[in-house]
C-alpha cells in the first residue's frame, strides 16, 4: 500500500469512504475482501496513531501540571 505518507486525517477519510461504500453496498464483491482488509489496516493505523498521540499528549499535560507554579 501507499502507507509511506499516510496521515491520520487521510487514513480516517479513506476508512470513512470504505465504510460508506460498504454500507451502501456500492462496493463490488470482487474487491470486497481487498476493501475490508484495507479498512482493517486503516483502523489499526488510526488506533495506533491515536494511542501514541494520546500518550504523548498525556505526557505533555503531566509535564504542564507538574511545572504549574500554583497547583
Amino acid at each position, binding site marked *: 500500500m501507499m502507507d509511506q505518507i499516510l496521515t491520520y486525517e487521510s487514513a*480516517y477519510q479513506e*476508512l*470513512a469512504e*470504505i*465504510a460508506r461504500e*460498504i*454500507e451502501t*453496498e456500492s*462496493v463490488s*464483491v470482487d474487491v*470486497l475482501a481487498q*476493501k*475490508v482488509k484495507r*479498512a*482493517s489496516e486503516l*483502523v489499526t493505523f*488510526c*488506533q495506533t496513531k*491515536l494511542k501514541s*498521540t*494520546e500518550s504523548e*499528549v498525556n505526557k505533555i*499535560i503531566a509535564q*504542564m*501540571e507538574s511545572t*504549574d*507554579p*500554583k497547583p
Partner: protein
Amino acid sequence: MANSLASSINYIRLSELSGKINAAIDTSFGKSGFWVIADITNHSFRSQKKYHHFELVEKDPDSNQLLARIAGKAWGDGATRILYFETVTGQPFTDNINVLLYVSVQYHAVYGLQLDLLDIDPNFTLGVLAQQRQATLDKLVAENPEYIKKAGDVYITKNIRLKFNAVIQRIAVISSKTSAGGEDFRHTLQHNPFGYQFYIDEYYTSVQGENNADQFLNKLLEVFYSGKPYDAVVITRGGGAQTDFLIFDNYKIGRAVARFPIPVITGIGHHKNESIADLMANTQTKTPTKAAEFIIAHNKRYADDMLSLQHNIVIKSQQLFSRHFQSLTSLNSLVVNHGRNMLTGKKDELTRINRSVIHVTRTVVFRKKTVLVNLSSQMLSGPKIIIYNRLNDIRQLVGSLKTFEVQYLRNKIGYLGHFRSVIKMMSPENILSKGFAIVKSRNKITSNPDDIAIGNDIDIILSGTQIKSTVKQKSRYDGSDFNL
C-alpha cells in the same frame, strides 16, 4: 554713652509701649472680625491642646513674592471649625493651602501681633482648587488635541489607550524616598500570595509641593530615556493633605502622563478627588497598595487564563481522543458488520439463483419432454386416425352410394314412366283418339293449310281409319274450341 543719655531722654518701658499698642489695636479693631483670603505656611498643631500655630501669607501671583505675612493661631472654637473644615473638604488644614478665614486681630505683649482664627470657609477652598484644576484640564485638552480628548465627562489620552502587556513584571516606580506609599507598594508586590516575580526600578523624587513639578517631570523623562522595556510606570504617594497633591494637578505632569508611551498606574493615596495625573493615567487606583493589588490581579488574570487554557486543553484533548476512538470503533464495526452482511446477502442470493436455475431448468426440460411426448403420440395416433377417418368416409360413401343407387334408379324409373306416359299422351294414336286427325297431302303429313288447295286430294287418318277425300272449300276458322 547710652546710659548717660538715658537720664536726659524721656522714655517708657517696653511693656508700657506694648500696652499703648494694645490699646491702639483694641481701639481700631476691637472685637470685630474680618474675612481674609490668605495662604497658610509654617503650620504646626499640638494635638493634646488642640492648638494650631501658622502664618498667613499673601504672594504676588506673578512673581510669587511675599506681599504680607501675619502670624495666626486657632484653638477652642477656632480649632473646632478647622476640624469641620477638614471633614467637609477632605483637606487637612496645613501649609500651602489657600483659605478664606474669619479672624480677629489681637496683640499680645510677649507674642506680638496675631490673628485669631474664628472660622474658616470650606466652600472657598473647594472652589479655588476646583477652578484651578478645571482650568488646567481645559488647557490640556485645548493644547494637546492629538493626545488628550474629552468624551463627555471622561478624558481619553494616549496613555489610556495603551494596552497593558499580558504580564506586568518590569515596573518603574516614581515615589518619594521616604514615602510610606512606595514602601507599601513594594511590600504588597513582593509578598504577593502567588509567588509572582517583579523587577522594580525606583525613581525617587519629591512628590510633594507643586514647586517640585519639574523634578518630578525629569524623573518621568528618566524612565522614558532608560530604554528599559517597562510594562508599567507606577506613581505612588502615601497619605497627606489634598494640597500635597497639587503637584499631580500640574499641567506639565498631566501632559507628560497623558503622552507617556508606557501605561501609567497612579496610587497617589487620596480618596476624595481625582488628580489630573489620575485622569490622564492609564489606570488610577486609590492607594499604592491598591496599585500593587491591581498589578497582581492583572497578572493573576493572565495566570488564571493560562490555567484555564491548560485545563481546557486537557479536557478538550481527552474529548477529542475519546471521540476519535469512538468513531474509529464505530467505523470498524460498520465495516465488519456490513461486510459480513453483504457477503451473507450475496451468498443467499447465489443460493437463490442456484435454486431457481435448477428449478427453471427442470421445468423447461419437463415441458419440452411433455411436448415431445405429445408430439410423438400425435405422430403415432395421427395416421391411424386419418386412415380410420378415411375408411369411415369411404364406408359412408359406400353406404350412401348404395342408398343413392336404389333411389336413383327409382327416380330414373319414375322419370322414365313419366316420360312414357308423356310420350304415350303425345302419341298420334292417343291424340287421334281424342278427335284430332292427321292430314296428308301427296302422302306427306302437313300442318300448313297453304299446302292444300281446293280440289286437291287429301288423306285423312282418324282413329285407325284412312279416309280419302277431295277439298271442296277452304275458309278461315275463328272458333274457340281449343282455347284452354
